């Protein structure tokens, strides 16, 4: 009896490892083939698009690809501006709101928190027509501000920051700062923000990546190719201009993936921990 269960345990382990390894390969291979194909000529790809070892056409692919509308540097800089701007605003104001909700007792405190919980679920794209008309009317299309400023109100982030503060903040710290004559704003900036560092770090990553990858709203608001963000640049790769330039398309895709890969493998520990934390909200 015991032996059979040991055998079945072992068989089960083999099954589990096999499934996990297949899934892991499924995560790696598409990107691997993409990077390899970025170094191969269109002719080589036409012969066989599956290859595991690089070729020597990286430079000529780059020349083809950089000669067209896809401008990796512009896209990178623009995405950097939008993503950094919105992340900084989201973090600062979400922390401030969370602090306002935790440290002070005021009449509408619980009402506002319930409201934030409710609006977390509002689907972002349903108001896009109203938002476009509003931005068009005030002549702010092709401007980054309409993509950055909404980050001041980030309900999901406020929720996380509040949960974090509620668990870590001792009001004694605030009180002793008051006795030392620190103003409320100063207390928040000098004492509370440093306490929130761990929460800020994970939320910053998600906010940044989310903004960086956003296609829908930027594509509607930015029509000037000098203002294109990285995902808009990516969407150009689908167009006719690159139709037969197989190697160049793969190179373009690779260029957009590399910064994310670097960030991911540097911070994967925090990202995974952040995802785990994100799911367990009660």
């Amino acid at each position, binding site marked *: 009896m015991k032996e059979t269960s040991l055998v079945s345990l072992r068989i089960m382990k083999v099954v589990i490892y096999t499934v996990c390894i297949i899934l892991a390969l499924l*995560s790696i291979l*598409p990107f691997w083939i993409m990077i390899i194909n970025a170094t191969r000529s269109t002719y080589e790809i036409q012969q066989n698009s599956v290859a595991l070892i690089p070729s020597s056409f990286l430079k000529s692919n780059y020349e083809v690809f950089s000669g067209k509308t896809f401008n990796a540097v512009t896209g990178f800089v623009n995405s950097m501006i939008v993503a950094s701007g919105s992340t900084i605003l989201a973090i600062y*104001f979400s922390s401030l709101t969370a602090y306002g*909700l935790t440290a002070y007792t005021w009449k509408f405190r619980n009402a*506002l928190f319930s409201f934030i919980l409710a609006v977390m679920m509002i689907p972002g794209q349903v108001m896009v027509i109203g938002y476009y008309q509003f931005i068009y009317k005030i002549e702010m299309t092709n401007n980054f501000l309409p993509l950055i400023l909404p980050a001041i109100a980030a309900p999901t982030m406020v929720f996380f920051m509040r949960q974090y503060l509620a668990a870590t903040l001792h009001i004694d710290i605030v009180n002793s700062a008051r006795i030392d004559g620190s103003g409320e704003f100063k207390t928040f900036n000098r004492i509370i923000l440093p306490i929130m560092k761990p929460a800020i770090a994970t939320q910053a990553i998600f906010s940044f990546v989310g903004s960086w*990858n956003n296609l*829908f709203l930027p594509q509607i608001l930015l029509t000037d190719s000098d203002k294109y963000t990285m995902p808009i640049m990516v969407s150009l790769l689908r167009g006719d201009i690159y139709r037969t330039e197989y190697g160049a398309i793969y190179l373009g895709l690779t260029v957009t993936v590399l910064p994310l890969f670097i960030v991911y493998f540097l911070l994967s520990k925090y990202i995974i921990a952040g995802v785990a934390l994100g799911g367990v909200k009660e």
Partner: protein
Amino acid sequence: MRRKGVSYAKYGYLFCLPFVLAFIIFTLYPLIYTAVIGFTDLQKFNTDLNLLDKPLDNFKFILNNQSFRKSLNNTVVIWLMNFLPQILMALLLAAWFTNNRRKIKGQGAFKVLFYMPNIITAGTIAILFNRMFGYPIGIINDLFEMLGWIDEPIELLRNKWTARGAIAFIQFWTWYGNTMIVFIAGILGINPELYEAAEIDGATGRQSFFYVTLPNLRTIMLFTLVTSLVGGLQMYDIPALFNAGNPDNTTRTVTMFIRALAFENLRYNVAAAASILVFIVIAALSGIIFFVMRDKAAIQQKKIERKYHKDLRRADKEARRAA
């Protein structure tokens, strides 16, 4: 005032003010504006809002529009084709990774790899997969030929079910890692005593999964379901860049439909009406899910607690009045 010192309440208002203002300007106002546009004749390059003589015309038009219905149907079908396998795979992996009897090594690396597609730009992934499914030259065709499964390239994306299946697979592939990590965290948060008790009672691994793990994951699964639904019904980047709605608009999602209506045909009013309808659909479905899956015991508990607190407060007040 009997209380000593200053009241700090005003800082509570002050610190929450930027959030409230930004929410009103960037979410509430555009949402109401969208709803209002739905009742007007705003089209092309007009900027003035004129209410229609029959205000519900745009909504009626959309409700009877075959393309709208079709795109809504496509969206739900593709979402279901992705969500069901996704949640099953995530549950299975989470059960495997949290089982104490067989310790799976390399979990950290597996988690990192499974989650990876989620942080890559969806547009990039869509175009990469578009290349993979390419015809006559594409990675999948070449792979199948190498394996000897096919003799000549096949146009995989010409069939609506392979096209939908491919989009559902991409969605699955980008999200199962995320769902798995959330479930693992949920399972690790379950009181270990419950598992010990089950084991003492002679429960098998399977039994403790079905009778301890699943019921305790309820809230987390509910949350996953609703966020996936809200996100899934807004699906845009992947279907738009993967296959642009082909073949014959069978993979066109409702967001793609609304976008084309507003920003290609410039029929803002009708598109706004469609957006509001989608909003209502999402809100109604989330509401139904919450209602069906609500935890009756917890609600009862909360009611009792609330009553207790109320009584406590009343007693407190009376005591103070007496003093």
